[in-house]
C-alpha cells in the first residue's frame, strides 16, 4: 500500500514515497508535517509529467489524488469549482451531459486540475484559446506557513501568475474555479489531410488553423530528403448537433512492463510508414466521438510500459514563428539521420494568445513533441544536438516533459524563473527545480 510513484516516462528513476491528503481542512497540517519531517515536499497529482518535474527533491510527495471532490457547478454559466485532485476525466463525465466542455485539454484526460495549472497545459486549440491557465478564474493555494490565499488576475495576481505553469512550487493548490466552454454535442467534426512535406504542412496550417477550433499534425520522422516532414494534418470542431454523451469504453491495458522497448529501431519505420499510408491522400471528413479525437492513447492503460523497464523520454520544444520552418527541418533531419526516431511525433502551431503564467511553455510558433525509448545516447549525443538547434532558433523546451535540460538553457528560456523562485514556498522543491536553478 506504500507503493512508490514514478513519473510517466519512468525516467529518471527516483521512486517517490506518497503521503496522502484527504480533506481540504487537513491540507495545511499535512503540508507542514511533511515539511518538518523531511525538510521539503512537492504536490503530486496523477504523475503524468514525463521527467522529474513531479519528483520532490526529498522523494517524499504530497499526493493529492484523494482531494477529488466537486465544490460547485453552475450549469447556466459553466463555472465549475473543484478540489485540485479532481481529474479532467471526472470533470468531463460531469459536464458533458450538461452541454459543457473543457476550454483546453491536453492529450490525456488523466491529469488533475492542479497538474493542469502547474504545467499550464495546452491543447489542439492553443491557436484560438491559449493555455489552460487562461481559463482559470481563481484558485485557493495553501502555503507551508499556514496561509490560505485566493489568487486570480485581480487578487494576489503575482502569485496567480507564478503558480500558473509554476510546477507546483508556489504552494499546494487546494481548489480551482474554472470557466468551461459550451458545446451542443459531444461529437467532433474532424477532417484529416495527408501532407508530403514540411512546406505543405505550413500552407495547410496557414489556411486552416484559423478556421478550426482544433488542429494538430502527426509527422513521420523516418523519411529523409524531399519528403522530410511528411505527415497527417488533423482538424476538428465541436459538432453543432448530436448527443451529449460521455464515452465509456472498455480500456485495453499493457499488463506489465516490457523487458525491453517494443518501440525500437526495427518497429519504428514500419509503424511510421504504416500510419502514414493508413490515411488516404485525399482529405477525409468524419464525425467522431470526442474520446478518440482528444485522447487516442487513453484507451490503452499504462501505455508507457511498452517502452520497457528503462522508460522513455519525451522531447518537446517550441520554435518561434520566424525560424520555425528552418529549425524544424534541421530537427527532423537530425532525427532521421540517427534512425532512432519517434512514433509519437506531434506538431502543433501555437498561437499568440499570452498566458498569465510567468514560466509558461508555449510561444507563437511551432511545437514539436517526440518520444524516445530511453538510452544513454539520448542525453549524451542526440538531445544536445537538438538543444543547439532549439537554442539558436530562439525556442524553448517544456519542463513538464523534461529530464535533461541544462540549468543554463532553462534560465535563458525562462528569464522570469527568478520571480517564481522568489515566490516559491520554502517547503516545496522538485528534483527538476533543483537541477535547473543551481
Amino acid at each position: 500500500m506504500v507503493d512508490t510513484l514514478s513519473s510517466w516516462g519512468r525516467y529518471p528513476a527516483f521512486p517517490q514515497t506518497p503521503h496522502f491528503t484527504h480533506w481540504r481542512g487537513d491540507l495545511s497540517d499535512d503540508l507542514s508535517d511533511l515539511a518538518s519531517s523531511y525538510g521539503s515536499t512537492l504536490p503530486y497529482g496523477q504523475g503524468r509529467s514525463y521527467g522529474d518535474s513531479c519528483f520532490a527533491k526529498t522523494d517524499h510527495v504530497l499526493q493529492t489524488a484523494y482531494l477529488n471532490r466537486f465544490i460547485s457547478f453552475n450549469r447556466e454559466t459553466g463555472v465549475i469549482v473543484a478540489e485540485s485532485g479532481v481529474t479532467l476525466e471526472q470533470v468531463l463525465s460531469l459536464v458533458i451531459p450538461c452541454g459543457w466542455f473543457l476550454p483546453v485539454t491536453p492529450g490525456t484526460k488523466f491529469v488533475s486540475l492542479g497538474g493542469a495549472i502547474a504545467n499550464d497545459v495546452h491543447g489542439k486549440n492553443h491557436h484560438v484559446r491559449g493555455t489552460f491557465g487562461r481559463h482559470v478564474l481563481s484558485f485557493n493555494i495553501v502555503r507551508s506557513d499556514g496561509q490560505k490565499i485566493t489568487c486570480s488576475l485581480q487578487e494576489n495576481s503575482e502569485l496567480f501568475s507564478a503558480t500558473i505553469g509554476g510546477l507546483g512550487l508556489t504552494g499546494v493548490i487546494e481548489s480551482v474555479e474554472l470557466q468551461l466552454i459550451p458545446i451542443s454535442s459531444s461529437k467532433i467534426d474532424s477532417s484529416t489531410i495527408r501532407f508530403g512535406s514540411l512546406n505543405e504542412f505550413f500552407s495547410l496550417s496557414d489556411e486552416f488553423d484559423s478556421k478550426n477550433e482544433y488542429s494538430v499534425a502527426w509527422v513521420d520522422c523516418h523519411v529523409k530528403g524531399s519528403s522530410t516532414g511528411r505527415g497527417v494534418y488533423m482538424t476538428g470542431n465541436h459538432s453543432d448537433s448530436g448527443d451529449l454523451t460521455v464515452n465509456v469504453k472498455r480500456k485495453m491495458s499493457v499488463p506489465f512492463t516490457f523487458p525491453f522497448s517494443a518501440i525500437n529501431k526495427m518497429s519504428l519505420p514500419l509503424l511510421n510508414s504504416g500510419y502514414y499510408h493508413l490515411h488516404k491522400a485525399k482529405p477525409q471528413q468524419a464525425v467522431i466521438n470526442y474520446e478518440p479525437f482528444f485522447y487516442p492513447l487513453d484507451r490503452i492503460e499504462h501505455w508507457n510500459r511498452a517502452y520497457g523497464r528503462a522508460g522513455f523520454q519525451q522531447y518537446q520544444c517550441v520554435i518561434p514563428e520566424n525560424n520555425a520552418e528552418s529549425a524544424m527541418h534541421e530537427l527532423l533531419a537530425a532525427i532521421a539521420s540517427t534512425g532512432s526516431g519517434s512514433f509519437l511525433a506531434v506538431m502543433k502551431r501555437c498561437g499568440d494568445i499570452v498566458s498569465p503564467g510567468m514560466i509558461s511553455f508555449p510561444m507563437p510558433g511551432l511545437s514539436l513533441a517526440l518520444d524516445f525509448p530511453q538510452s544513454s545516447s539520448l542525453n549524451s549525443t542526440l538531445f544536445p544536438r537538438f538543444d543547439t538547434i532549439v537554442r539558436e532558433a530562439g525556442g524553448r523546451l517544456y519542463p513538464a516533459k523534461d529530464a535533461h535540460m541544462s540549468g543554463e538553457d532553462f534560465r535563458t528560456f525562462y528569464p522570469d524563473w527568478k520571480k517564481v523562485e522568489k515566490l516559491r514556498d520554502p517547503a516545496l522543491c522538485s528534483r527538476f527545480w533543483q537541477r535547473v536553478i543551481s
Partner: protein
Amino acid sequence: MKNVLIVGATSAIAISCARIWASEKASFFLIGRDPSKLQQTADDLKVLGATAVHTCILDLNDFNQHEEALDECFSLMDTVDITLIAHGTLPDQSECERDVAVALHEFSSNGLSVISLLTLLANRMVMQASGTIAVISSVAGDRGRPSNYLYGTAKAAVSVFCEGLRARLFKSGVHVLTIKPGFVDTPMTKGLSLPGLLVVSPEKIAQCINKGITKKSNTIYAPGFWFFIMMIIKTIPEFIFKKMNL
C-alpha cells in the same frame, strides 16, 4: 429516485457509494461527526446530481441522540430505500490491551453504536415494510487475531447481530446486507503496511456494495476473493491458529 440514509457519511467507502447514488439523483440524509467534512461531502454529492442532501452532526457514541437523528431523517423522507451504516474506527490494539477505557470506547464506537442504531432503525423500516439496511462489518470479525482482536470482536458482534436481524426483518420485506471488506485504501488504514496486492480502492468496494444491494445478497465479501481467503483462514484449527502471528 432513491432516498438514502448514510451513517458515517464522511468515511471513504460511504463517499464512494454515495457518489454512485448521487449520479442516479438520489436524496440523502448524511450523519457524521465533523461538520466541515460533512459539508464538503454534501457539496460534492449535490454537484454530482443528488436531488437533496440533508446533513446531521452526531457523535455516534452519544446513544441518546440516535433516536432524534433518525426521527429527523424519517420526517424528511417518507420512505428510506437504502440505509448504509459505514462509521467506524481502527483501534490501536496495543493501547486497548493497556487501557480498559480505550478498549471499551472502541468497542462502543464499532459495535454498540451499530447495535443501538440498528435496533431503532429496524422498527422504523418494519413500519414502511421495504428498503435495505446495508451494514459494513469486516473480514476481521470472522476470526480473532492478536493484532486487532478488539476491532474483530466488535465487527463479529455486528455480523451476528445483522444475521439475526436479517432473519427477523425478512418477513416484513426489509432486507439486511452484511458487507465484509478486506483491506481498503482509505484514511482509516493510512500508515499501515498492508499487502499491496490485496488492497483495493474504496470505489471498488462501493461497486460491490451497490451490486449486493441490487441483488439482495445476504453477506458479501468485498471484493469477492476474500470469501476464499476467509474460508481458508476459518478452517485453520485453533491449535495451529494460535501459533500463527497474524
